[in-house]
């Protein structure tokens, strides 16, 4: 029975929540990896996301000046390479000198990097919002017709299909990387016990580089997906994402990439569903406080179960 309740709930709350959750999940992978392997909270992660969405926009713009109309996902490929290079440069110049210092030094350094990257983007592209994709996203007509013949009408715009499929593909690749390749096994080993990993012949410095590559790629994907979803880019979008991504990483358990994915999905859904009028007419939590939801989940988690849902690491 496809009542108006389900129609509204699925189309206007559940699917946007799922999409947002995918974006958080991709971002949280990078955070949980750096937290697990390098043992610090990387505050600059959101800014790498933001930078890559600006780069994507720039590539699409440059291509269109040559008469090529690129889909943002195509533009994201060179942008993600740039994001990876950026992450590696930042690590080499600003994080590596602190490898053997107390972790808090590297946290302060990443805190500074957050501002440096953001102001760099603001210098290059200006502080104003830029339209990423023009126009209103119409629901995909094929899915709409197909599902309404079963008496359930799903209104999914193309951008959401791209984001959902893209996330699934990246997850599958990531799963393969982590469970079946040498580098992935090394990453898990370093995350579990860096000293033991080192004495068993794993080159930790290479693993760290691999971490930045994977984290940077996921951040780039998350940034582009976010820009596709909201259809605009601005220099504070990375900072806005930072808290939900940390919440997702902590919810899933630090150092547990798939925990971070689950955490991301939960946080994304919780944020969107909190605006649903569960009780009475008005939304349960005023939309203005939406970004507070992730934070409350994080604080509750930190108090009652700091190891996260999937028994991550507690520092």
């Amino acid at each position, binding site marked *: 029975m496809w009542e108006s309740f389900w129609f509204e709930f699925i189309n206007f709350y559940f699917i946007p929540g799922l999409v947002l959750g995918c974006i958080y999940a991709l971002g949280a992978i990078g955070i949980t990896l750096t*937290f697990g392997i390098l043992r*610090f*909270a990387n*505050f600059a992660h959101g800014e790498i996301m933001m930078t890559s969405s600006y780069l994507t926009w720039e590539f699409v713009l440059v291509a269109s000046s040559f008469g090529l109309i690129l889909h943002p996902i195509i533009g994201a490929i060179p942008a993600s390479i740039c994001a990876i290079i950026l992450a590696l440069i930042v690590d080499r110049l*600003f994080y590596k*000198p*602190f490898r053997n*210092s107390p*972790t*808090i*030094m590297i*946290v*302060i*350094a990443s*805190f*500074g*990097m957050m*501002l*440096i990257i*953001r*102001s*760099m983007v*603001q*210098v290059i592209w*200006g*502080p104003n919002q830029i339209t990423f994709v023009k126009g209103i996203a119409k629901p995909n007509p094929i899915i709409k017709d197909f599902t309404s013949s079963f008496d359930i009408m799903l209104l999914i715009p193309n951008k959401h299909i791209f984001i959902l499929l893209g996330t699934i593909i990246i997850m599958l690749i990531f799963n393969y990387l982590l469970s079946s390749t040498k580098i992935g096994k090394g990453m898990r080993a370093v995350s579990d016990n860096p000293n033991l990993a080192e004495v068993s012949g794993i080159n930790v410095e290479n693993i760290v580089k691999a971490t930045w590559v994977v984290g940077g790629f996921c951040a780039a994907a998350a940034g582009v997906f976010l820009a596709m979803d909201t259809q605009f880019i601005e220099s504070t979008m990375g*900072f806005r994402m*930072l*808290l939900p991504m*940390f919440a997702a990483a*902590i919810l899933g358990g630090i150092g547990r990439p798939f925990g971070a994915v689950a955490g991301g999905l939960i946080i994304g859904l919780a944020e969107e569903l909190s605006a649903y009028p569960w009780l009475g007419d008005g939304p349960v939590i*005023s939309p*203005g*406080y939406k*970004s*507070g939801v992730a*934070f409350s989940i*994080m*604080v509750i988690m*930190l*108090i009652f179960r*700091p190891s996260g849902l999937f028994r991550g690491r507690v*520092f």
Partner: protein
Amino acid sequence: MEIFLGYFLYAMSLLTVGGIYALLALGLNVQWGFAGLFNAGVAGFAAIGAYTYALLTTAKSQFHFGGLELPLIVGDIMAMIFAGIVATIIGLICIRLRADYLAIATIGIAEIIKLILKNETDITNGPRGINKIPRTWEHFTEERFYSNFPMNFISNPKGWEVFFDSIPKWWWQPFFACTILTIVIIIYFLLEKLRVSPWGRMMTAIRENENAAAAAGKNVTKRRIEAFILGAVIMGLAGAFLGQHLRLIEPTQTFDPSKMTFLVWVMLIAGGSGNNKGAILGAFLIWFVWSSSELVTNGFIEILATMFDSVDISILKNRAGFIRMLFIGLLLQLILQRFPKGILPEKRPAISGKSQKYAG
């Protein structure tokens, strides 16, 4: 003469804001320098102080809660108390977390405070903010002050009006700057006393080796919460003064984390964390660098404009602020890597004063 007056007033406003930042840096020094608590939500505590002060002392307004018209000093004290209360709640929840987690949690709290200030429009007037915040000294020229108790005792409103017309308009500026500097000095001496007191030494012990301090019977959690609250109280006071200085506060631009939290961190680390003198020095130094860099970049852009007539400099002008931010960020990285102890490194209480010869 005119130009000297201009320089004088510019110097006064530099000292005023420098003093406010010095208070923030001192507050952060208690949390980070003394106790090793990473507070990334300085802007949040300053916002609480500023808003508490503003709501309590402004004239009645239809746009926001009250305007309770309380005396200014009550506003200052309540700003400190309120910041302390919020810090207590946060401290009880988050203080046991490791430094990274505390940093994330405090960033989140600053954001939540901002959200509340933005969304509770009935109380705070939302994004439009609160204006006409009475400023210490300058408030005497407002009618509601000079026509009421202590002031109407000395002269009638008419007399005051004539008096204020007869003196230059900027008369309050040096007084305001001196008030803030005096408060900075008072708090500095109190904190110095605290630093060498048993409490201060205990804080150092806890920061350096938590387990050893706990084994020696110190209540680590309680001491940390105390330090967190004390720091927040000082930040609340700084916020109250910031509100007075700006006279118009609103949640997003005024309490932008990059300008508040981050700049204060740079100040403390540059000056030397753990050293109160360093915190003050760093605050004034970075603030002077920050404000003079505005002149330098603007001058540089002017030169560029005269050299290349065809180039449109309006874009550069818009973005000059970000170039400065970039520069300050790089400065932090440089200090962090080359001089992690800051200009004035921390002096441990054990080797200060008379016992210096024996302690080595």
